[in-house]
């Protein structure tokens, strides 16, 4: 019963590993964050009674009451502006913007206020806001419901940006984001919401500091770099390549700001070849930053120019065209082949 998601899961706190979808893991992280810190507030369009259009906040209002978990009127700028005010009043706001493409109306508040208030106030104004943003494509959604804004957010000083790739990552990274004293943009890969994996929220995990990446699969011939939904696609690619004896390392970047430049350099220093994969359009996408960072740090060891496999420089398309737009397995494999076969001229 979806409407009892939280209560159902809550009883499991500290029991054993179960199958969790990303959507459930995030729901649980929100629940535990609300339990552990009574300054946490969850709000946004339809997050209360409905439990969110993706049911990610399901059951939270019933459990924590309408003061802690509430619906807002339909205005993204005010949602973020309200978060600023709540933070100034000593609360820990966890707003949701319903879809990636609807964060644009809130960008003025996010960039000019959320990201700068701590700086503007010389460190006196607390701004521990976590913006949850269902993101990226892959679900045949209407226009504006499949956007990738990470390079935009990563460019803004004062923000941190993170995107989980698995249910377990979703749980821990969201708890880390909410506990963080700075504003964090939490990009949820909506195409992975329903993918289930075993995960024990109570199992002790070594807490990786903010800004560290994760080797999702070790390998030695080339590094595939991705985040969000593209991590599982890269793992598929690595699986396929392994059949041909090519061992690809898959690096889940996780934090898109601050970026783990050292982690990138370490991996590509070993594999000497890199392919970065993202859904966002090519030009000025975060792949450019990853490519530049790697090249700056591994110029001598790199055996081929870093390849970017990305969305095209076109608006995110409708329907079946989305499969043609998104980096597919074949396009990624082609790029892998390029870096493997590259010979200096």
């Amino acid at each position, binding site marked *: 019963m979806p409407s009892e998601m939280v209560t159902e899961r809550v009883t499991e706190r500290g029991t054993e590993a179960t199958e969790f979808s990303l959507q459930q893991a995030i729901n649980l992280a929100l629940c535990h964050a609300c339990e552990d810190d009574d300054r946490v507030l969850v709000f946004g369009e339809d997050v209360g009674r409905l439990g969110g259009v993706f049911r990610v906040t399901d059951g939270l209002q019933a459990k924590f009451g309408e003061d802690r978990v509430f619906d807002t009127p339909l205005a993204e700028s005010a949602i973020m502006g309200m978060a600023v005010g709540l933070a100034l009043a000593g609360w820990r706001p966890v707003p949701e913007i319903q879809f990636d493409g609807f964060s644009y109306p809130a960008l003025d508040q996010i960039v000019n206020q959320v990201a700068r208030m701590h700086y503007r106030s010389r460190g006196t104004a607390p701004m521990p806001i976590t913006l949850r943003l269902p993101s990226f494509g892959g679900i045949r959604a*209407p226009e504006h419901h499949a956007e990738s804004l990470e390079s935009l957010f990563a460019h803004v000083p004062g923000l941190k940006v993170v995107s989980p790739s698995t249910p377990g990552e979703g749980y821990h990274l969201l708890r880390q984001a909410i506990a963080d004293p700075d504003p964090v943009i939490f990009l949820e890969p909506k195409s992975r919401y329903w993918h289930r994996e075993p995960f024990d929220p109570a199992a002790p995990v070594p807490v990786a500091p903010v800004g560290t990446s994760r080797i999702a699969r070790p390998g030695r011939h080339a590094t595939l770099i991705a985040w969000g939904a593209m991590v599982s696609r890269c793992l598929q690619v690595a699986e396929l390549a392994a059949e041909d004896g090519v061992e690809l390392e898959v690096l889940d970047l996780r934090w898109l700001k601050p970026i783990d430049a050292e982690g990138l350099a370490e991996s590509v220093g070993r594999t000497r070849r890199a392919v970065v994969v993202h859904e966002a359009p090519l030009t000025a996408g975060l792949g450019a930053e990853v490519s530049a960072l790697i090249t700056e740090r591994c110029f001598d060891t790199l055996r081929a120019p870093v390849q970017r496999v990305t969305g095209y420089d076109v608006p995110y398309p*409708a329907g079946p*065209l989305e499969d043609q737009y998104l980096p597919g397995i074949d396009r990624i494999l082609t790029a892998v082949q390029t870096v493997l076969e590259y010979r200096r001229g």
Partner: protein
Amino acid sequence: MSSFSAKVLVRSRKLTSLIAHCCLIHYLLCTLSAMNLRELHRHLVVARRLDEEAIALQRQGVLPAYAPMKGQEAAQVGSAAALDPTRDFAFPTYRELGAAVALGVDLVGYLASHLGNWHGGLYDPMASRFAPFNAVVGGPVTHAVGWAMGARLDGTGGVALTYFGDGASSQGDVHEAMNFAGVYRLPVIFFCQHNGWAISVPSERQVAGGSVAARAEGYGITGRRIDGNDVAEVYEATREAVDRARDGGGPTVLEAMTYRLGPHSTSDDPGRYRPLAEERQRAQDDPLLRSARLIGDEEFLAEAESHAAKVVREVREGLLALGEQPGEEMFSFVYREPTRALLEQQRRWKESADAQ
């Protein structure tokens, strides 16, 4: 006097302002000559049956998703029918099938958006006087203001009408648009379908003060709340606003009180946030039943149904016959001429598409 024109008189008595009284004769004349309740009813039935068909197509897996407008037919048809498609222009949201019907928009092209063929639909928005399908809540409202200024500069007498919902009324853009329209006194109609819900949020927790029309006064512009389930009232009120705008009388906010009888979209489950009893009770005030009752001519009503069935059949066939859009289209409409970089990306896309 037909029951319809009698009804007009009754409604007219509700208008208490001097101007309204002076215009009565004029309105009666317009109403009786140019307008036709029967025609409106035919649109209502087409809209209703097509909406039902779209839901069926979604259940059958043809449409990936659909946003029903059941219950809002009168608000949409009545307002759109009051426009002059030779010189006016309408700005829809994502739930304007009834307006598309009344404006004569290519309905296969309209529903192609829900089919997932092309976000903006496949109809020609410029020729249809119906802007591309717009999924940003509140997004097109300022466009109408700009269009209205353009029309006034050209002296065409054109009027812009923009649709938006009770939820959208919370967006900053709607305020900015009304303020601009008020400052410049532009020929634009802000047509709010107050259908009680914005997904799961009831308008009591959305619209502070309760009325979108009441906001108009704060901008020094005319605001009027109307019965959105009465197609004649909607038509008349919109006609009045259109005439005023054409005559240089400035903008109007119309708030059509109606109800979203269905879910927000086919992915939505209203049972999670509103009692079924509310839906049932509101369903009794059915805009189609109301106009049918007024018309009272069973033969005509049956004819309207068979006309609708024919339209539905044609649209259904048209939709099923639509192929996927060719992948090249991803590249060819981004700019008027594709850039060199885009052509290169298209070339690479073609290579990888051909390789599969």
